[in-house]
């Protein structure tokens, strides 16, 4: 299944390479990886989606922690969280079908951000499924080009994200997820 990790990392040269190299080295396939600044200077935040089982996810987490520049890792897969992808879609739309396309965009809460004689650019934010659906209905009109950012994720609720390194203990997957869970030292 797909696991979504949020990783806080030091904002230093080569850190993205270290993280990407780790997943390659350990045989994980990265479905999506995004990096950006946080509100804290010197700390970047990555959202990494990997297709693996529970054991693989624990191993990926432990290996991420082995990277000296990684501050904290959260597996938000089974947490209540907001997960968003963003896409820009340039779709063929001339005078004949422009209204149709714009109506579809409206239904999906997508915004028109550029209009040209033969094309429209739509901007849509949402879950991966929602964007996939829009892409499906736009395809018959002719998608000229498309770009997606990959997903970003954030846990719901008022608990502030903590980017300090946690105390880590071994968690054995398959055990009941009790309170003592896990990665805590």
């Amino acid at each position, binding site marked *: 299944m797909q696991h979504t990790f949020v990783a806080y990392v030091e904002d230093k040269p080569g850190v993205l390479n270290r993280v990407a190299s780790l997943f390659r080295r350990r045989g994980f396939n990265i479905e999506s990886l995004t990096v950006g600044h946080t509100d804290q200077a010197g700390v970047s935040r990555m959202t990494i989606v990997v297709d693996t089982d529970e054991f693989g996810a624990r191993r990926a987490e432990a290996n991420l922690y082995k990277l000296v520049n*990684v501050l904290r890792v959260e597996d938000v897969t089974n947490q209540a969280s907001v997960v968003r992808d963003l896409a820009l879609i340039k779709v063929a739309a001339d005078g004949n079908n422009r209204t149709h396309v714009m109506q579809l965009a409206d239904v999906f809460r997508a915004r028109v951000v550029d209009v040209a004689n033969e094309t429209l650019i739509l901007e849509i934010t949402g879950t991966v499924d929602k964007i996939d659906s829009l892409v499906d209905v736009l395809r018959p009109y002719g998608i000229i080009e498309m770009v997606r950012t990959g997903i970003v994720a954030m846990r719901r609720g008022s608990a502030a994200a903590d980017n300090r390194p946690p105390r*880590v203990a071994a968690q*054995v997957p398959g055990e009941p997820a009790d309170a003592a869970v896990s990665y805590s030292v």
Partner: protein
Amino acid sequence: MKRTGAQMIWECLLREGVETVFGYPGGAILPAYDAMLEYPSIHHVLVRHEQGATHMADGYARASGRVGVAIATSGPGATNMVTGIATAMLDSSPIVCITGQVGSKLIGSDAFQETDVTGVTLPITKHNYLVTRAEDIPRTFREAFYIAQSGRPGPVLIDITKDAQQSTAEFDWEAAAPRLPGYRPDLRALPSEYQRAVELINTAQRPVILAGHGVLISGAMRQLAEFAEKTSTPVALTLLGLGGLPASHALNLGMMGMHGEAWVNNAIQEADLLLAFGMRFDDRVTGNLKTYAPFARKIHIEIDPSELNKNVKVDVGLVGDLREVLDELLPEVAQNEHAGWLAHIDEMKGDSAVRDIQNLPDSGQLFAAHVINDLWRLTNGEAIVVTDVGQHQMWEAQYWKHEQPRSLITSAGLGTMGFALPAAVGAKFACPDQEVWVIAGDGGFQMTMAELATIAQEKIKINVAIINNGYLGMVRQWQEFFYERRYAATPLFSPDFVKLTEAFGLKGMLVTERGQVKSAVDEARAHPGTVVMEFRVEQEDTVFPMVPAGADLNAMIRRPKPEAEVTAVQTEVAAVQTEVEW
């Protein structure tokens, strides 16, 4: 005080307590070498190949427990280090490698001798640095030495541009404390995990301890012995765990795995509890994971959380330094007796003694196992032995009885041929008062024999035993068992090792009969300088027992009994092969 980056390198090494470095100069590291002359208290050993420098640093680290240091220039100097770095990585050996890099303005331009060394070594170092400013050098060194030796030790590489070495900055060691917010080598398990471990230990009927390199690294020899004695648990050792419990200890079973003794592997397969102490369930230790220790609950004590559940799924994982974890467990576990289980393991030894080459009638032939066992007895088992990789390495593990930790230095995880000779040089510098023996094959020795020149230049005394069987022996053994004796590229020409050694100004000796071994070894030990001894041994000798790669751990090819026909080996192989999907 103001210092050039080059001077800072040596200031940092001094403050880290470094006495010996192993290196090779070149363009991009020249400023550092120039500054070296101002720091005569650090001894520089000029190697003949940068791979040798890394193995020497590695051998130094393993013999002493301190960080070993290797230096090289950019480009080819640095890439020559790759094998040594990977060796140290897989065997958790703390070394710091310092490489020169082209000027920071030239980086990315494919300048002369430029290589992306941090990129090349990224997956084979614990951490690495590219330093482009002199003022960053002190903190980088403090972090590098800290990272290399804390937690699970490993190699750290520092790549320093030429301009960073040449420019001047304020040197303030005290102010340059490590800033490593994400680095947590001091991880601890939860109390609830300890309780579960204690329950499993106290209720086990057929427990076995699997002791690995972690015992030596964390210095848990006393705790291991106490734990084994209190809980009456037999101890099987990995190759790198040898010496963690004295070989003469009543509960010491010996080495496990591919070339472990049959009763050790059988005990593991029949156990109802495995206690993995600082080991990582390497495939050479487990065989087929699907059938590995099928009746056993597993407790894994390991400082690196990423090792837990990597190969073998465990019931309890205790993260932490092995010595500290055992100190916590020891008062909690119950005094126990497993007399029946221990007696059963004794029974399993069965005909092993009869099959042992030491007990075969002396046919006048010289077997490697005899040579190694004789060496052990003649040195009273007190030497540091550095082995290469292959058949002789396994015979050493079987026939050299290690009573002390750090008395065996060998490349286990990476299996690096050519490791022994340079690693022994490092071990000798770490322990100048100890007798150091190299045991190497004719193949591996030829990979790094140029370091004999380093030995001659440094005028150090080590003893080298080349086990010459005229083949790449272990590969030949696989060809014999699994490739119908089709000896592709394994017959091996060797130079006249005696003459070769003499060309370096060292003493060479040739031994061809068992009767000569004692007097030759006595003579070599008494000689003040390095001696290289060539032992011409049986050519098609085989390491038994053997678990074929990927086979069940108890599917072992055994040494045929003395009265068996010559074809008996093939029968033994066939018996195992029917059970295994190759």
